[in-house]
């Protein structure tokens, strides 16, 4: 007796895989186009879409109870908060509190 949830059709999986490959190629091409300051956010958004696809379709998150999605979302939220506040600290420091580099001729 197969378990309760219905199966994602074969074409569903292959379509998702195709989307993932296209998105990967897209982010590769984007990296050659010099986007400057926008390169990082766009790259992360594309990666986020790919991760969302893998989670919803391949990991069947869509058909699982909401508790699982809640767990995934809270983990993601904490990662974003963690990175955001740490980067905010380094970004808003007075510019000249530069951290010393080793340089070629570091003396002991």
């Amino acid at each position, binding site marked *: 007796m197969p378990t309760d949830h219905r199966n994602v059709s074969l074409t569903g999986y292959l379509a998702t895989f195709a989307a993932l490959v296209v998105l990967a190629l897209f982010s590769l091409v984007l990296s050659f186009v010099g986007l400057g300051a926008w390169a990082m956010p766009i790259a992360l958004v594309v990666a986020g879409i790919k991760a969302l696809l893998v989670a919803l379709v391949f990991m069947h998150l869509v058909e699982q109870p909401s508790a699982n999605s809640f767990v995934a979302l809270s983990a993601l939220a904490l990662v974003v908060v963690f990175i955001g*506040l740490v980067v*905010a600290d380094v970004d808003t420091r007075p510019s000249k509190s530069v951290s010393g580099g080793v340089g070629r001729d570091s003396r002991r």
Partner: protein
Amino acid sequence: MIEVSPVPSFLAAKTGPRAWLLTRDHKRIGLMFLFATVAFLFLGGAFAMLLRTELVRPERDLFDATMYNRLFTMHGVVMVFLFMIPSIPAGFGNFVLPIMIGARDVAFPRLNLASFYIYLIGAFVTLGSLVGGGVDTGWTFYTPYSSTSPTAVAPTAIGIFIIGISSIITGINFITTVHTMRAKGMRWHDMPLFVWSIYATSIIQVLATPVLGLTLVLVGLDHVLGIGLFDPRVGGDPVLYQHLFWFYSHPAVYIMILPAMGVISEIVCTFAHRNPASYRAIAYSSLGIAFVGFLTWGHHLFVSGMSETDAAIFGVLSMFVAVFSAIKVFTWTGTLYRASIRLGTPLGYLFAFLFLFVFGGMTGVAVATQSLDVPWHDTYFVVAHFHFIMVGGTTTAFLAAWHYWFPKMFGRMYDERVGLLTAALVFGGFFMTFFPQFLLGNAGMPRRYYSYPDQYQALHVLSTGGSWALGLAMLLAFGQLVVAWRKGPRAPANPWHSRSFEWSTSSPPPEHNFVGPFVVRRGAYDYDLTQEEADARSTDR
């Protein structure tokens, strides 16, 4: 009336070492965690007494600086990782939570036993570093000192990493148990409040401990192989280490206090013999603390050279997390209004908790005020603040839980008069030890000082005297429980006349907690039902 339960208790069901070492019964695992954490409480306490005795005079009394530094580090490591974090969640949580939600066991019993053994292995590896001379970096392992200290940093880091794994496993176990194994008919708002606080604690354990794992890996790599991400010689920034460390360690202080709040919620409703002033306030403030607790770690870095704007952001977030604790305190006090209160040792500890936790919590908000943190940071004021919360709050609640669930766990009653006396002694010893440290902090006495300027000596002597009194009181408190375990009178199933579900099974409970499937048609605090009606609506027959 003490009805004899038809099924033998979980202790009597199987005996012999195999019944304990290979058990998958959450009650036995809970007891094993409790015995281990009490043992580490006394080990850490012994280190603390040595430290205090050394500080009686400004210069060298018992041992030299290197020994002192290793001692205060091991005091921190043993107390934080081996006692505070596992004591209530893994000890009482394991024992009581499944019974409270009417389940026969936790979701993954084998994983539960693995969690205990991983905890023991982690403990022995951490304490094993003592053989190699111990570690003298403080329990915070701040780089760059932790990467250049010649002491055994790597073994201790590995030991704590292993203990972290046990903490994550316990967290996963409890979250899954609460979600999938509640008794038939028990909605989320029918569950006892202790279950809510253990659920919130598990969320923090699962989401925060991995970051500690990564931090310890980085410390180990830096110390052993010299591959340091925080090494200024290669351009790293030690302040980023503090970000990573405190991202775990601030939620960790909520791992320590949330279960204590759960115990206090249970005791105040039972001894006030009425429903909590506002069930939703306490339940949702537990979740509030769990999530907002992740946003406030920056107040540990106010004077470490972080940026001013980031300090302001962390300052305001730290203020909000204090509000959730205040909600709980008001609701507990409100629960005593128009109640019918019976005196008991757990209630004695509850008063100690109320005063000390509020005083400790408010000084926490004071220290989170940015301009006040500048003179107070890393002085004895901060030491006094977190001891008021950890000892005044969590350890007091730990003792209260021991007395509250003692009849349920061992089927025996302790002597109320001796219990209340030891509660008073613990409160007195504690206050005499740590209140002078607030004044020391104000006077500017820094933390982790082996020798100190002479003008601080008077307060140090007072604090040391208090620490001996506290040590004695702790011995009396647990000694009294051992005596009661051996010679106490038999306890009925519901000695406190509580309506909570763990009291609707025999004491000590049978191996699968209930005789038949447990069905519930009421909430955990329906004191507006008579005991007979309440029992009729939550039975296992």
